């Protein structure tokens, strides 16, 4: 998979859609003024272990950048005492604070620099983005992905491939529109009948409908009752996808723990919210992928293989 394809796949999953330059950049930035000496830039780079220093005017507007190679040139020419103004690069490639994650990645691809200054609309320097910042942002995003599978790459790979298939050719589609808990479970009941009609065996039907029920209840309890339940069922395999519109799971690791729940007392009195929903799903599914995060939609994808019982 090429970098471009990976970016496309990740965009499809919505993983990085919320990331813009301002959320990735480091704001602890060291800058110099044009009248500062080259020697000061050299000292700063050595002390802070950085490979480039942005140069700003009195209003903190970006006017240039001085890199290690420029310092080396200045050293060779004996110009360490000169102002940085005389050696800095003036046509700096910079990013805007609201640039998308894809724009940032394509900048790194096109220009092969190790760092980009980030500016506001008025040209003021607000941060810097290095390749390490990009990597950290990706890792932070993956923190919100929980994968219950030894073969992580395989599962995630199948997930992104199936995403597209769900759009076009789900065998079973149910819109979850639940007020309170009154018709909660309706979708999974229909799914169960659908799977039985398709000739799936009782054990896999039970596992799939139990998981569908738990996921549907979660949508009703935690996501305002709005979501969808979709399935692709063929060749001894059932793939379920339950999605909602948020507010998302803040800490998926906690949510996977038995007995942990954010449900209200009123919900608990009805016998829900025992903190067994996701653990049950993990227990009964063969593969599980959950993508969520605070104030984000939740996507739960489960795969059931016939004869795995």
């Amino acid at each position: 998979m090429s970098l471009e394809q990976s970016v496309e796949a990740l965009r499809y999953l919505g993983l990085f859609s919320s990331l813009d330059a301002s959320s990735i950049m480091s704001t602890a930035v060291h800058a110099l003024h044009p009248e500062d000496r080259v020697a000061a830039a050299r000292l700063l780079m050595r002390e802070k272990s950085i490979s480039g220093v942005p140069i700003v005017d009195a209003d903190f507007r970006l006017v240039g950048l001085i890199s290690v190679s420029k310092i080396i040139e200045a050293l060779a020419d004996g110009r360490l005492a000169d102002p940085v103004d005389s050696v800095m690069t003036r046509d700096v490639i910079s990013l805007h604070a609201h640039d998308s994650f894809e724009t940032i990645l394509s900048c790194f691809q096109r220009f092969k620099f190790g760092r980009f200054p980030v500016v506001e609309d008025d040209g003021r320097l607000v941060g810097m983005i290095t390749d390490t910042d990009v990597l950290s942002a990706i890792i932070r995003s993956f923190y919100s992905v929980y994968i219950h599978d030894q073969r992580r790459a395989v599962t995630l790979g199948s997930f992104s491939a199936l995403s597209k298939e769900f759009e076009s050719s789900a065998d079973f589609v149910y819109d979850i529109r639940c007020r309170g808990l009154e018709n909660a479970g309706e979708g999974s009941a229909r799914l169960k009948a659908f799977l039985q009609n398709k000739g799936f065996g009782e054990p896999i039907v039970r596992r799939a409908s139990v998981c569908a029920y738990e996921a549907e209840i979660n949508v009703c309890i935690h996501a305002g009752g709005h979501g969808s339940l979709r399935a692709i069922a063929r060749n001894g395999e059932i793939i379920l996808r339950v999605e909602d519109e948020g507010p998302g799971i803040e800490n998926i690791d906690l949510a996977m723990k038995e007995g942990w729940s954010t449900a209200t007392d009123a919900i608990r009195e009805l016998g829900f919210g025992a903190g067994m929903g996701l653990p049950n799903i993990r227990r009964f599914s063969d593969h599980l992928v959950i993508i969520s995060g605070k104030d984000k939609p939740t996507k739960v994808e489960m795969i059931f293989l016939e004869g795995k019982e």
Partner: protein
Amino acid sequence: MTVHDVIKSLGADVAVEGDTTRLVTSGYACDLLSEVIAKAAPGSAWATIQTHVNVIAVAAMVGISVVIVCEGRTCESDALEHATKEHLTVLYSRDSAYTVSGKLYVLGLR
């Protein structure tokens, strides 16, 4: 034994008479729906104090043969309607879930 046998032996009131010829092969007592859906076996008699419509949804999902609502509680009307649709028998017992379970155990359910 069948649902019919359970009704006779428990002396419970019949709130919904569903498919009473269904076999009852085991028993389960719990009020946490996630536990029931994960652990109760199909064909169980289920003793609970929950009375709302989701009890029926869970029972249908698991393949429960008969629901016994304990402690003299009664179901909400939408629950009864749903049970009727599902041909699921719902019984009311004045006993606790413990006592009901004991009675079912003595009947031979394990």
